[in-house]
């Protein structure tokens, strides 16, 4: 375990898409989530320090603090004073649904995408439909934000 | 372009012209004060020639006062060609370079040479006209205040040399400004070089025009001065005596390897060793040692020739500096 070693190389590097319209803190949260989902980050891994993130991607330190706080609230990370912020076991603080349910949803979505493809929709078309339905159906978000706060892809 | 040149330099040029005007006023006041003090009939009246009368003392003190003021004006005239020239000349290129505005100017379709020529011509002409205008005034002032015209120090404040000095100082400031690229240091350097150049030229001024020699016959010299030699009206008295001394008969200058004073001691020893009437002793020594006394001097009639020659020297130097400035500006790259 290199968890206590503050000087160790950061395991992930954040990047920001300033054109996406997605708030920066949300991008950071999403990137940690993806990394965890893809197995890039595992329990006990240290997230880059706020200073590292700030100087890497020139971002407001408060934004990084906020993203990490959000991850903590979501139970994905844990701040250890003086050491840093660490990825914790999922489920510890609730959050994501059971994985078997996720698998079913994924299978459903895949078949829907295949249907859309045979109906002649290209990737953009699929994305637009997906985004529009996300917009209209209120998701029970962890943050309890209003629907229009959700991300919106734009050209 | 002319407007541009004027717009960037008008403050300096106007201040310089103002300073020249102040000097002109100063010249009129001091010259007139001296003239009126010196023309007081009291000074030549018998009361003053025989001794001191009450009014006479007053007249003399007035003359002394006027003379002091003439002295201050003299100092100003001595200093102003350098100050006016350098202060107007130095910023012409240097201040543009210091502010980087030359990069703007030289990126336009006007060539650098033309840009420089217009700027130099405009302010150069302005101060030349201003200084040129007081040259006649200086001649009047020198006459009114009865300063000698040929002697060093007096020669420098009258005639066309004043204009020559100004143009030289102006181009010196401009050239050093273009080379040093800093106004302050260019001014300091230019003033130093100007003083050096003036002193150097002054050291050979006497030979810019061939001097005249007076040969005194029969050993007559300082050991027995001929009456009238230095009287007020003699050309010698009004001229500028450069050298004098015993030299070999047939020569008007010391023999090679000798100075004007080499033979004096020999002649004096001879003179003192002969116990005969003075004139005879002098004559005998002159024949015996084959020496005669020569006084070399510049007569007043050479005044304008000397003025012309020295002005030409400084104007020529200014032209060389013009070339240097043009070269520096044309070759300038950051």
């Amino acid at each position: 375990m290199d968890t206590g070693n503050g000087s160790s190389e950061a395991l992930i590097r954040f990047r920001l898409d300033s054109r996406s319209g997605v708030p920066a803190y949300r991008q950071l949260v999403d990137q940690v989530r993806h990394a965890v989902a893809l197995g890039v980050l595992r329990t006990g891994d240290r997230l880059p320090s706020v200073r590292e993130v700030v100087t890497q991607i020139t971002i407001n330190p408060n934004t990084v603090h906020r993203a990490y706080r959000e991850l903590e609230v979501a139970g994905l990370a844990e701040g250890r004073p003086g050491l840093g912020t660490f990825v914790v076991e999922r489920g510890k603080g609730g959050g994501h649904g059971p994985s078997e349910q996720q698998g079913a949803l994924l299978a459903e979505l895949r078949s829907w995408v295949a249907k859309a493809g045979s109906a002649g929709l290209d990737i953009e078309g699929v994305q637009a439909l997906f985004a529009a339905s996300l917009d209209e159906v209120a998701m029970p978000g962890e943050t309890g934000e209003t629907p229009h706060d959700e991300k919106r892809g734009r050209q | 372009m002319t407007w541009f040149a004027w717009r960037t330099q008008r403050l300096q040029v106007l201040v310089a012209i103002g300073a020249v005007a102040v000097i002109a006023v100063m010249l009129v006041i001091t010259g007139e004060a001296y003239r009126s003090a010196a023309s007081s009939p009291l000074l030549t009246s018998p009361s003053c020639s025989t001794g001191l009368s009450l009014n006479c003392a007053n007249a003399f003190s007035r003359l002394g006062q006027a003379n002091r003021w003439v002295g201050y004006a003299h100092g100003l005239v001595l200093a102003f060609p350098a100050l006016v020239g350098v202060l107007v000349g130095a910023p012409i290129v240097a201040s543009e370079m210091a502010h980087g505005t030359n990069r703007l100017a030289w990126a336009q379709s006007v060539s650098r040479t033309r840009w420089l020529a217009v700027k130099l011509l405009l302010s150069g002409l302005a101060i030349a006209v201003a200084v040129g205008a007081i040259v006649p005034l200086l001649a009047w002032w020198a006459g009114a205040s009865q300063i000698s015209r040929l002697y060093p120090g007096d020669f420098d404040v009258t005639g066309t040399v004043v204009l020559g000095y100004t143009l030289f100082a102006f181009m010196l400031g401009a050239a050093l400004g273009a080379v040093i690229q800093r106004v302050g240091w260019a001014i300091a350097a230019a003033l130093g070089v100007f003083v050096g150049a003036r002193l150097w030229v002054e050291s050979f001024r006497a030979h810019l025009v061939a001097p005249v020699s007076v040969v005194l016959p029969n050993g007559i010299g300082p050991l027995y001065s001929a009456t009238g030699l230095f009287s007020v009206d003699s050309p010698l008295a009004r001229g500028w005596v450069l050298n004098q001394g015993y030299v070999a008969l047939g020569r008007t200058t010391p023999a090679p390897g000798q100075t004007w004073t080499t033979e004096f001691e020999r002649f004096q020893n001879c003179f003192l060793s002969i116990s005969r009437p003075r004139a005879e002793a002098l004559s005998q020594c002159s024949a015996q040692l084959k020496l005669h006394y020569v006084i070399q001097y510049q007569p007043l009639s050479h005044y304008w020739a000397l003025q012309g020659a020295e002005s030409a020297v400084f104007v020529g130097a200014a032209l060389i500096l013009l070339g240097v400035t043009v070269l520096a500006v044309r070759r300038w790259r950051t």
Partner: protein
Amino acid sequence: MTWLAWRGQRAQLVAIVAAVAVFAGWLALSGTADQSAWLAVSHCGQHCSPLALNRLSSADYWTSPNRLVLTFLPGVIGLVLGAPIVAREIEAGTNRFAWTQTIGRTHWLVTKLLVAGIVAAGAVGALDPLLAWWTGAVRNGPRILPMVFSVTGFVDVGYALFAFMLGALLGSVIRRTGWAIVAGVPLFVAARAWVQFSLRAHLAPVATFAGGLPAGSMIVTPSSVSIAYAPEPSALMNDWQLNQGYVPVGLHGPAAGQTWSTGWNALNRCTGPFPNGNLQVLEQYQRRTQHCIASLKLHYVQQYQPPSHYWRIQTAETALFVGAALVLLGLTVFVVRRWRT
């Protein structure tokens, strides 16, 4: 901060000191030449060779240009070093850096002024011992006389400090180094001239000389007849003579509301015009003059400053200029403290 003050003006300070050193060397050289030329002449007396006379005239030629330079030197040094203190910073915008640091503006300014001011005063003051020797070597004349007074003693340090502060103040007001110097020159010259011509004579109690040769006594020599109306005792030769004339007996100057010429004019009206004529006529005129002086109750008074007042006047004039410099310092501090864009 002292280091910054030095570093910021290093080039100018060194240049000025070097220039003064070069001039001092020149002064020593030309002064030595002139001194030995004078010595040679004073030894040969009546029988001076042209060699000695030529040497003297060529060496002595430099005396008055040198004195001219010395007259303006403190002013030039002071203005050149003083004007950039604030103006240069404002020109370069660096004041916006310096004045937003923790150090106070007053502290910043006073340190800069102190460092450059000490150099300015030191450069001028270091010349003073040399000048004391030089003025004697080139026979400048009594040092109480105005032109000599101004280039000897320590008053030049006062001039330098005054010019320095004048430059600093003008620089902080005009905010341009060049124009500050240009504006400073006439102001400095005016201040110097005003003090020298109007004020200096009264910086120490004026000494008066009354009487001396009986007025109107006649001096007869084989070739001429002179009548000494204004006695000129040789004792006054080394003094700085201020005013002279006939004033009412008991007074050492003109009575209130009168000038020095009042007495001259009254006496002149009484004696009538100077006569042309032989000795007898002149003797009559002399008696008439004596009679007039007595009946008008006048006596001859000469006002002067004796050489013994030299240091007293030096101190007073130096104090005057240093005091003015302090006032200018206060104004400069005020201007700098108030500076806002």
